[in-house]
């Protein structure tokens, strides 16, 4: 098994939205970032893969198994946006619940993580801040020896310090080559820090699935005026858009373009800029 997670041809139709044959993989030992604007289909993809919603077509394979049974779920840690635990419980009571759900529940790891995150074990979850709730959800996901973590917008709305703590934990997690992470987020700067591969989803379709290095090291944006834009070979542009008097042109090989157009200003592209040009630019 080389892929920890694989979706192929995943399809789901709603009245006003469709997930259209979404396919991508999360190789074992890697972190894959699923990016896209709000409503692009990131959560729908995750929900369909996890069996929360019924898929209409396609294949999902998690940890080498197409059937998402108890044994597979035992090895997946899922963190959604928000803690999703009954707010009347305290972390200590949650431990009593979880140890009766997960066969592999590790109380010691759980309480160590509570201490590491400075989470009070006896306080009700409803008294927790959003950051504390997310830390608790992550503590739970880490406490049953998961081999695959799936995080759906788990870092959204958190302050940079908490986000950085969580990103460090994720990087530690994949030090074990058996561990893998799929993380969906629209905070692309987080993914630039940790992801090995980026899957960009837009209007229910996968636009690209590429190594992050390729995007950050090779992709570039030509910033130019109208005359210079007209002189460019349009076939080399992935997408372009006009902002004020300036044209921005996304290219897949910035060094090649710099050589070809020595007078043009060719800058490295951030994932945010690449996403923006795909979504708002013309292709």
């Amino acid at each position, binding site marked *: 098994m080389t892929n920890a997670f694989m979706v192929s041809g995943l399809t789901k139709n709603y009245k006003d939205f469709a997930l259209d044959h979404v396919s991508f993989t999360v190789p074992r030992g890697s972190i894959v970032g699923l990016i896209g604007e709000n409503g692009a289909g990131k959560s729908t993809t995750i929900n369909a893969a996890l069996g929360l919603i019924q898929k209409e077509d396609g294949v999902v394979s998690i940890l080498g198994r197409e059937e998402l049974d108890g044994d597979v779920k035992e090895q997946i840690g899922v963190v959604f946006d928000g803690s999703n635990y009954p707010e009347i419980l305290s972390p200590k009571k949650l431990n009593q*619940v979880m140890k009766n759900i997960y066969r592999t529940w590790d109380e010691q790891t759980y309480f160590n993580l509570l201490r590491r995150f400075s989470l009070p074990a006896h306080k009700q979850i409803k008294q927790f801040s959003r950051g504390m709730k997310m830390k608790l959800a992550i503590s739970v996901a880490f406490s049953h020896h998961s081999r695959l973590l799936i995080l759906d917008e788990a870092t959204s709305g958190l302050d940079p310090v908490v986000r950085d703590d969580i990103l460090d934990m994720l990087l530690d997690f994949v030090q074990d080559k058996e561990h893998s992470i799929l993380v969906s987020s629209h905070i692309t700067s987080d993914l630039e820090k940790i992801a090995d591969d980026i899957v960009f989803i837009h209007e229910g379709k996968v636009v690209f699935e590429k190594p992050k290095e390729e995007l950050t090291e090779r992709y570039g944006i030509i910033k130019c005026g109208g005359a210079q834009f007209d002189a460019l070979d349009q076939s080399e542009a992935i997408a372009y858009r006009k902002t004020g008097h300036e044209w921005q042109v996304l290219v897949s090989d910035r060094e090649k373009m710099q050589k070809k157009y020595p007078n043009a200003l060719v800058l490295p592209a951030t994932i945010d800029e690449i996403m923006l040009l795909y979504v708002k630019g013309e292709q």
Partner: protein
Amino acid sequence: MKGILVKDLYIARSNILVTIVSLVVLGFGLSFLLETSALLVLAPVASTTAVFISITSDAASKWNKNVITMPLSRSRIIGEKFLFYILLALLGMLTALIPCIILACFGLDITPHSLCLYGSMGISSCLLAGGISLPCAYLFDPEKSQIVFMMSFMASTGIIAGLVLLTNLLFPVKENILLAFYIVLIISVIWFFISYRIAVRIYGKRDIT
């Protein structure tokens, strides 16, 4: 299943305690006005309200979404709610028996006949109501579910009356009242089981977001 049962007990703990104390107090209070064993009709119904507190809490905290990702099948998740309902009904029944037994020790006239009659009425009413409201809790949003929950008890009373009238066509109920209510109880148990199967089918196909 044990884990989610523990979770529901934590959520409904205070409600369960209040119900137990209220039933005991009511049991002794009723003894001055009417037959204490009549409390057995009310007890299972009153004690099962805690199930709907847990269902509302699950919806509010989005636990329903989280639990699907845990190593539990959907039928087990539903099964736990039905099991919790039955456990609470039995707890209510046992609680109502406490004042009955104590008062019987002090010489009050509480007969096995009245205990069996009111007991079967209470459990039948509870199972019929739960059989209506529990699957609906997975069909509708929490607000509508609560309305269905309240209406289900009225409906169960009507169903029991209807079943007794039907039984009366087979034999005179007045002379065999206990037998008539045992038949109602058996029908209620079968209905509750069918309702569980229906709820599993509904929940199994439902998108949870």
